């Protein structure tokens, strides 16, 4: 933070602080930084679940193994849905950044549309994932079958739970946008949600590579 700047530096993509005071800018910086730290902590959770998954591959207790439960086709579509949702969230962020200025209110509409698209894609992803689990359950591959299936379900399921949180979070923020306009707390929360959403994308890429591709190659 340089003491001389009155206007805001664009420190985070999509964050347009307009004419924030120095204290305000510092507060926003900290608000966003704190969320980065939280994500780091959350990443540790996923790292541990990946490690457990790695140790579970042989522990099938005579039940289905990785090759048996992985279906690459749906997983590929899910990946595309999630990647597309990240792209659309990015577009939404760009629109919101411009929309921060009152005279550019017209950008709000596309921003909301992009975010709505993100939400639809997220719901579609989650729906497919639930369907995957339902299919597995029909084939007898339930989490209580073996350590491997427990680890598989919890790793993929924890990611799914995170997506669910994002899906609840997004309409909450859109409601706030409708209720009070794009004020500073909402901007911060939008940035946090976008970080969260992109973070989930990265985790999914890891899941796709470690779980699904590995299963397909086995």
């Amino acid at each position, binding site marked *: 933070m340089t003491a001389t700047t009155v206007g805001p530096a664009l420190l985070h993509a999509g964050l347009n602080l307009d004419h924030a005071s120095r204290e305000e800018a*510092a507060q926003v910086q900290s608000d966003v930084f704190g969320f980065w730290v939280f994500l780091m902590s*959350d990443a540790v959770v996923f790292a541990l679940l990946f490690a457990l998954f790695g140790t579970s591959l042989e522990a099938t207790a005579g039940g289905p193994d990785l090759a048996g439960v992985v279906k690459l086709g749906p997983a590929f579509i899910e990946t595309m849905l999630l990647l597309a949702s990240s792209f659309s969230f990015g577009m939404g962020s760009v629109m919101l950044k411009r929309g921060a200025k009152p005279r550019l209110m017209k950008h709000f509409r596309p921003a909301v549309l992009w975010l709505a698209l993100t939400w639809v894609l997220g719901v579609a992803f989650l729906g497919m994932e639930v369907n995957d689990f339902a299919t597995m359950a029909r084939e007898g591959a339930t989490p209580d079958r073996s350590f491997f299936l427990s680890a598989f379900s919890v790793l993929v399921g924890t990611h799914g739970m995170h997506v669910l949180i994002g899906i609840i979070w997004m309409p909450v923020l859109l409601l706030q946008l409708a209720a009070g306009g794009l004020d500073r707390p909402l901007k911060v929360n939008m940035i946090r949600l976008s970080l969260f959403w992109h973070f989930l994308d990265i985790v999914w890429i890891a899941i796709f590579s470690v779980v699904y591709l590995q299963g397909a190659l086995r």
Partner: protein
Amino acid sequence: MNDPSFTTFLFGQLSWGALPFVRAWRDPNISEIIGAGAGAIVVLGAFGAIALITYLRAWKFLWTEWFTSLDHKKIGIMYVVLAGIMLSRALIEAVLIRTQQAVAINAPGYVQPEHFAQLFTTHGSIMIFFMAMPFLTGLMNYVVPMQIGARDMAFPYLNSVGFWLTVAGAGLMMVSLAVGQFSTGGWSGYPPYTELNFSGGPGPDYWIWAVTLSSLGSSTVGINIACTIYKFRAPGMTFFRLPLFCWTSLCTAILMIFAMPPLTVATLLLAADRYAGMHFFTDDGGGNMMNYVNLFWLFGHPEVYIVVLPAFGVYSEVISAFSSKELYGYKSLIIATMAIAILSFTVWLHHFFTMGQSASVNAAFGIATMTIGIPTGVKIYDWILTMFRGEVRFTPSMVLSLAFMVTFVLGGFTGIILATPPLDYMMHNTLFLVAHFHNMLIPGTLYGLLAGYMFWFPKAFGFRLNEGWGWISAGCWISGFYLAFFPLYVLGASGMARRTQQVFDPAFRPWLLIALFGAFLLLTALITLFVQLYVSIRDRHANAVPVGDPWDARGLEWSVSAPPPEWNFATIPHVGDRDAFYWRKRAGGAYRPADHYRDIELPRNTACGVIIGIAAAALCFGLVWRIWWMAVLFGFLVVATVIIRSFMRDVTRTIPAAEVEEADRRWLAQAHAARPVPREQEQSGLNQGRAKIFPQPTAKHA
């Protein structure tokens, strides 16, 4: 109404037999009666507290001034109060444990095995999660923002949520005394013993949810403290000017950020096993309990340093202040702290050398473990050299610090023994281990937290604690520790296993009796601590130090009134050096009014933290007893509160400049009217919180 399925829906697995009073009625033996007595104390204590608060008509005051407050100072104090309550319970349990072992030599003793196992499980879980953690969190909460020249934490609301989650966990621990039983699986809750097959009751579930709540609370604390130190330091407060307590708090915060997730994962996966029939750590289905052990100690070893490092910070502050010398080797202390923080992630395996890894893996972790002794040794030398040629005053805080240095080094030696895998094979699971970790954690954490409590108490409340009772208490803590735990080294080396409810070797009797005597001394220490508090509150007017600097101390926290104004600093200080306030006093820059006062924005009180805490406790209670409607309802309440809070915009209030100025000038008038006291009169009634400044030949700014 008497339809069993409806009753099950309403009450889950809760039944009359869950109440210890009913159990004691049905089967009146001494073990059950003790259980019922403990439950009765909780129930009566809770009702007594409610009745007292109602009688004093203090509900509104507590609610508006404390429970809903987002002030980091008040949250800090509430954390310490919570720690005090939990310390009392866990210490009484420790005395019960020692009594049982001392009397149960070729005899059944007075508590049954099941009950004894609950005692050592709750003792350990409480001491770590609900005594040490809240205590150190409270100190960090109170002190860190003041030391770095900030007005609050980075996330005041999150601070409140974290505190109330911890309270919720502690509440579950307390409720388990009166409803149902607690886990018998030890504070580390190892499966497969804690799985449904072997521990079917609600015990391990209580443990899981209490620890999970505490773990989530601590994660928020870590994020909050780290962000506060990274982002809200006063101008000029560079990293190498931070007081050492801030450095150790920062390292602790970083450890919390990385080490709490493994605990959360471990407890939640254990819950997945117990609730959803999964097979992470079970005997069958390919489950592997070693995964749990690794996860738990990936948390557990950094945890040791989470509880020790803040105490190291306290010692650095106390020793420097009461030696009237700059810390010796400031940068080496920082490097040592950082080194310890990083090394703490590389040694977790030494908690289970005996679990079948190869000898070379054990050797690697043994060496890594011994390496931690090096930075720790650096610190000890730095503290000794800080005292060297200093003007040392033997206040109770200082006495505890000195006792720490000697005792902790002894514990370090026995740690080296345990870090050697072949020797560990001999000592593992004996009382030697119990003696060792108490030897690290009592001086390394408890003495430090108590020293910090006595050191900063006058700052927080505006009057000094009674030194006489402080010395008595410190003496009891110190001698009590030696008597209670050094016999355990002998017993452990002679082969007495830990956690045994009965002892079969009469040769152990004398040592067990000495240890029992030590345990009673420690209980006396706790009682004298409360006596000290009572006496000090009684004599508060005689011992008032309103000017706020009773020890001629060094950090910015001493540069404001005691107790500090809600906004901490009338103007944010500019920092030009390490030990900012010490040199400012000597340069004649202290106790000056600001050039101009400004409006100050502070977080407004909110009930959301309390609601989330209570709802989380109810959610977990529902989960423990499988009362699903309760779990769903209160889970929904937690989520709803979080969402509703996110809609609130009017979350700050402004203190007008005039009010700030008036308070500041009132305090300054007090400061100028106060008679400065020289160091030798610090512990007398003459001390009003303004130190007499002597010229210092070595002063940097002379």
